[in-house]
């Protein structure tokens, strides 16, 4: 089987799901596991689901969450508790039901002939990279992960990275794990040492922008997963646009993963808490 993937849109589903587990991972971060057989079997790395957390009228919009891992019938979602929606998500208990729309969006692509990949994750940027690391590893691609977070405790998703990557490099703002500093400080070294064929990045946009430039300077293709506020999640409402060299693109269907070289970075597009 060829592991190169160029992403073809799969069928999108509306599925009733059940909470299997919902646990605190670290300060302000949770991991929810959903029994979602149809979406879990269809989802590909980098795609997301649009979750209806509440059926009340206090807040009505769905929330988009990238899939950290899909395990048989189950979706694993890492989430940061930031606003009304994610606070309500953190309250969900085993056995509660919700509905999801998914799998959605254009995920990570594995270019033909990829032998070595560098994954760069900042904070919750690790969320959409678990499945990616697993797929790359299963395809025999050597994986290097460079991960940064404010503190050691907030390096999330390390289990899947340790299980799949050849090397896991870390940096923390306070020096409590790995290098003392930002993850961007690890990238140039990893680019030089590992000579990856592709760079994947997700995290704060200021950081993703720097990594994009670092990859471009090393002449390595780079893909970035971007976050935007979304309403419909299926391409209709035009809320989640990303400015690219090809014009306005929708994060929900044209992304969330984009060719980083095509992104026109604009800090005003960084979403506020939701």
């Amino acid at each position, binding site marked *: 089987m060829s592991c190169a993937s160029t992403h073809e849109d799969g*069928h*999108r589903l*509306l599925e009733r799901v059940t909470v299997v587990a919902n646990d605190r991972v670290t300060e302000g971060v949770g991991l929810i596991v959903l029994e979602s057989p149809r979406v879990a079997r269809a989802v590909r790395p980098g795609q997301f689901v649009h979750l*209806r957390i509440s059926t009340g*009228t*206090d*807040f*009505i*919009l*769905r929330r988009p969450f990238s899939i950290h891992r899909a395990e048989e019938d189950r979706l694993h979602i890492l989430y940061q508790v930031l606003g*009304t*929606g994610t606070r309500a998500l953190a309250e969900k208990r085993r056995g509660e039901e919700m*509905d999801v*729309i998914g799998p959605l969006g254009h995920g990570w692509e594995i270019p033909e002939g990829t032998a070595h990949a560098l994954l760069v994750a900042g904070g919750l940027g690790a969320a959409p990279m678990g499945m990616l690391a697993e797929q790359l590893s299963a395809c025999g691609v050597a994986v290097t992960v460079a991960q940064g977070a404010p503190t050691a405790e907030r390096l999330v998703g390390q289990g899947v990275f340790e299980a799949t990557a050849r090397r896991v490099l870390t940096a923390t703002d306070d020096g409590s794990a790995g290098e003392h500093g930002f993850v961007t400080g690890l990238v140039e070294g990893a680019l030089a040492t590992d000579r990856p064929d592709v760079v994947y990045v997700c995290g704060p946009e200021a950081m993703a922008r720097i990594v994009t430039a670092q990859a471009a300077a090393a002449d390595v293709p780079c893909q970035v997963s971007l976050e*935007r*506020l*979304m*309403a*419909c*999640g*299926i*391409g*209709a*409402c*035009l*809320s*989640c*646009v990303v400015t690219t060299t090809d*014009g*306005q693109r929708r994060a929900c*269907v044209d992304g969330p993963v984009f060719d980083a070289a095509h992104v026109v970075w*604009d800090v*005003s*597009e960084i*979403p*506020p*808490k*939701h």
Partner: protein
Amino acid sequence: MESAHNINVDMSVRIGALELRNPVMTGSGTFAAGREYAEFMDLGRLGAVVTKGVSLNPWAGNASPRIAETASGMLNSIGLQNPGVESFCANDLAWLAEQDVPVIVNVSGHSLAEYVAVTERLDAEDAIDALELNISCPNVDEGGMAFGTSCAAAADVTRAVRAATGKTLIVKLSPNVTDIAEIARSVEAEGADAVSLINTLLGMAIDTDTWRPKLARTVGGLSGPAIKPVAVRMVWQVASAVSVPVVGMGGIMNAEDAVEFMLAGATAVAVGTGNFVDPATTMHVVDGLERYCRERGIDRVSALTGALKR
């Protein structure tokens, strides 16, 4: 023996020359041209698809963030991003024409001349059953709502567009006015076949961490259940003031919401923000409306229109 529970409910309604199989439409700008929703519902079971606003030339829309969630609703400032009328006809309309559903195209413009030019172009398309004149978008600097907030401007643009098309013409009204009934009478007098209301209410939200507006454009249009009481009131006022049909919308999430609008005087209704919450909301409203009538022994849905008891 016939019981109230197995009567056949006539769900059809009439808007101008347009016969709809049921009164449930989509709110312009929430449904694109329908293709995105086709995986989640049967477009053929809608009363009509109302497309996103179409302008003469492509519009890029506003800067991001374009939405902000608020209590029981949302603000948007999308800014009528659209590929222009030629691209719309070649792509969206070509697809929509193959679906078994009436097509109502929302017409947008920066100027009176642009409204007329778009209308003339769309008038040539047999696949279009009706036009909805958008004089109520709060999210563009020129045109949009400016045409819908004075009686004289609303009358001028309606007269010009009326002269440019023989298709059923619906004028979509802004709630951001002192007296919406007065505007409705002005467009009725210039030949509008129907009016639709309400477009979004101008609103604003501020991030208390950054002290900045939550929308890049500062202000935007409020929609969702939060605005429903305002919308029902305005539909009631307008339906009392004009004799053309009223298409009611504003926060409809279920069949009971739709019933409220019809009792207030709406002939048809549209689901907008509700499409974002559940892409099959329109189907639930269609089924629920029929059930509502059947359970009460009402044999035609149009009997609800204006049946408010006082």
